[in-house]
């Protein structure tokens, strides 16, 4: 056995400096927050002992907001102002939302993302989600007794760039520092894998309230490697409720219900679905506002039949994920079930049949994602020596660029391990062309019109040349959160233009600041004080990281001049920390970062070469 020497890239925090970090499962139906305490991951309950926070937000005429059970209890009475399943609208335009007529909301078709008109004004799904995150942040801070360093927030693996960006924006709005966006099935695999010391290839089947993911992972010795993922970000338990609802309309010859009745029947449909998990039949009764009485018997078989094609819709992504991983169903050692919707018997039967084995349900499907996210948050916050621990995830959808004739040229294929980057060269079409329009798309289809448009931008200032002689290098980079940035550069002339774009659904920092100011809750908050506090925490972390690094290898990797420069920048930052202007602190922190760039590179070079040198020596020993 070759002994591998692994040097630690950074010092972990001293034991007494336990950093408060949480994992948040921002679900379609319910949301949860969990943390690691005494090496055990546990879900944090609210004051009444409830773990699940219904993802329901109600806006009141006086500008107040209710979140969770209290809002859920009145959803039929005040359906227009009570937003449920807002996750389905994240990063989505009105055209994507689907069955608008059967939803009790007043939609506003805003550019990029759909919005909802409430009694408290027009709300973006980002704002609604921020209300949920805010409640969870407060719950965590009260329960843990301090301010959070940050959170790992989970997203469906099949979320596209716009949906991920919207989630990150919501966190920012709620004052939550995002340590990482983590894919839900991967989070579940962490919780499951650690709990069961699992080794081998596992499938995670995650059917939530509004999203479906399938991920194939290889688990071995603390490494969680996602081989492939697939899914449907608009398929979940809600759709099963909706089938029951449509069945009720049909059976009772109803049409065009008002918002109140729609919400009432959807609520009854959901209750019936849950009842059918362990009962052969259930009776649905409701009194509609017009005085009609609904009284319908629904059997498990009826329910099964009316949802056959919904279950079937989860099979196709499963086959595709296996194909992408170059595996067959026989290669899968275990199937982990995640998400409340996997409680439905027809779902369990279909999955068992597909993989020819009984799926694993020994972890609470509602909690497993939050528990896994908490474990990862603990690692990312630096509370735990992470050397034996590695998570390798992938991007779910191909990323491409529009070329001539409305066709997509793929630049980063789906299931690429992140972070990843690819570059491709393009050229001009006309003589003397000085600008080039770049259209970034996400999806698997050949036609641009069948893919999701993420961003458009123009590269200007290309020196006039003969058609075909300019060389424009377009680079796509996906970071560890699965978020994309794109840059373009004209190379042949040495002239350089460089643009980094945010997807069109993403909010600019200015827009977020505006939202914060607009929101009644934050109006009382002293924005400056909050910004100052955040900056101070960040600056102190930076100082600690740099001084730890200097202690480790400052003398071996730096010459006197470099060291003096870093020490000076540290001194300057410490100095500015005495003051109260967050912008000044931010600038000093940026200067310290600049001063440490070459040092960071040298440290990484050393750490990489050390890893392999260790191996060579031990191989000689053998």
């Amino acid at each position, binding site marked *: 056995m070759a002994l591998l020497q692994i040097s630690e890239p950074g010092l972990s925090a001293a034991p007494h400096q336990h950093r408060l970090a949480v994992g948040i499962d921002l679900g379609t139906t319910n949301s949860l927050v969990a943390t690691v305490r005494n090496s055990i991951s546990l879900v944090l309950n609210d004051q009444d002992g409830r773990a699940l926070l219904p993802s329901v937000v109600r806006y009141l005429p006086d500008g107040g907001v209710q979140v969770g059970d209290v809002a859920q209890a009145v959803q039929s009475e005040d359906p227009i102002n009570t937003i449920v399943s807002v996750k389905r609208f994240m990063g989505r335009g009105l055209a994507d939302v689907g069955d608008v007529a059967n939803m009790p909301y007043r939609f506003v078709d805003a550019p990029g993302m759909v919005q909802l008109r409430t009694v408290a004004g027009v709300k973006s799904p980002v704002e609604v989600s921020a209300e949920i995150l805010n409640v969870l942040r407060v719950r965590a801070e009260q329960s843990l007794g301090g301010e959070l360093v940050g959170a790992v927030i989970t997203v469906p693996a099949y979320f596209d760039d716009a949906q991920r960006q919207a989630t990150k924006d919501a966190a920012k709005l709620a004052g939550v520092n995002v340590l990482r966006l983590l894919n839900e099935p991967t989070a579940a695999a962490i919780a499951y894998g650690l709990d069961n010391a699992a080794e081998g290839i596992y499938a995670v089947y995650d059917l939530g309230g509004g999203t479906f993911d399938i991920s194939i992972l290889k688990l071995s010795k603390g490494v969680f490697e996602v081989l492939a993922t697939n899914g449907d970000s608009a398929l979940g338990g809600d759709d099963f409720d909706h089938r029951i609802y449509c069945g009720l309309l049909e059976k009772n010859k109803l049409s065009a219900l008002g918002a109140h009745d729609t919400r009432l029947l959807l609520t009854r449909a959901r209750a019936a679905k849950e009842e059918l998990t362990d009962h052969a039949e259930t009776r649905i009764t409701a009194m509609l506002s017009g005085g009609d009485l609904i009284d319908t018997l629904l059997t498990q078989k009826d329910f099964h039949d009316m949802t056959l094609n919904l279950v079937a819709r989860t099979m196709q992504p499963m086959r*595709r994920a296996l194909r992408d991983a170059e595996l067959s169903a026989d290669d899968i050692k275990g199937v982990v079930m995640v998400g409340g919707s996997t409680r439905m018997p027809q779902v369990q039967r279909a999955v068992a049949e597909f993989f020819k084995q009984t799926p694993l349900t020994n972890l609470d499907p509602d909690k497993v994602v939050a528990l896994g996210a908490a474990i990862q948050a603990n690692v990312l*916050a*630096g509370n735990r020596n992470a050397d034996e621990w590695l998570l390798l995830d992938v991007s779910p959808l191909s990323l491409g660029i529009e070329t001539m004739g409305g066709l997509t040229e793929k630049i980063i294929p789906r299931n690429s*391990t992140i*972070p990843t980057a690819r570059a491709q060269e393009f050229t001009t079409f006309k003589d003397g062309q000085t600008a080039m329009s770049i259209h970034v798309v996400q999806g698997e289809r050949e036609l641009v019109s069948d893919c999701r448009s993420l961003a458009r931008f123009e590269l200007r200032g290309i020196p006039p040349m003969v058609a075909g002689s300019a060389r424009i290098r377009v680079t796509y980079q996906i970071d560890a959160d699965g978020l994309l940035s794109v840059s373009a550069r004209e190379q042949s002339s040495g002239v350089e233009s460089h643009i980094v774009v945010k997807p069109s659904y993403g909010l600019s920092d200015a827009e977020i600041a505006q939202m914060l100011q607009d929101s009644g809750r934050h109006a009382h908050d002293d924005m400056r004080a909050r910004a100052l506090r955040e900056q101070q925490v960040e600056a102190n972390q930076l100082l600690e990281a740099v001084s730890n690094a200097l202690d480790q290898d400052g003398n071996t990797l730096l010459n006197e001049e470099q060291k003096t420069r870093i020490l000076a920048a540290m001194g300057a930052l410490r100095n500015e920390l005495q003051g109260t202007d967050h912008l000044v602190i931010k600038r000093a922190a940026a200067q310290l970062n600049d001063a440490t760039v070459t040092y960071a590179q040298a*440290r990484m070079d050393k750490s990489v070469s050390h*890893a392999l040198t260790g191996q060579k020596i031990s191989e000689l020993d053998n």
Partner: protein
Amino acid sequence: MSAIGIDFQQNFFQLFNVPSRFQIDMVLLEQNYRVLQAQVHPDKFTHLSESERRVSMQWATRVNEGYQILRKPLDRARYLLSLHGVETQEETNTAMPVDFLMQQMEWREAIEDAQQAKDVAQLDVLLSKLRNDVKELQKLLELNIDIQQDFIAAAGVVRKLKFIEKLAEQIDSALDELDN
């Protein structure tokens, strides 16, 4: 398609500490990939300085790119040949032996027939046949590169493999479509 980002001081074989050959120890490659990612992955740097986080992302990106290239036989061969100064010219050099081209046409017809007949089983059969052809050509690559060091001949084999890869993609998307 090429690499971006930081300057490469080492080639990927050196980076992953595997011999610069076509036939490599895949277990060792995977093991070293994990050792390298354990050093450079952004998850290890979340709580550190901005500059360390940036360097980490660049390195992790590079390690992922290198692993993908060395892991896939076709990409590995192409990369190895480019290290020997031989470009495979897959886009420009389309001069292929006549019998190979005839064979390609037969393949295409067979795939289209199966696709039109919605014959998933037949598509699977074609795919496994194709994989056998791929294995044969990979053996040839090993001979050309590792033993004979005939890089020009190897470039010809790479071009053939590229054709076959496209056929496999065609079967894949046909299977995808039939799934819808």
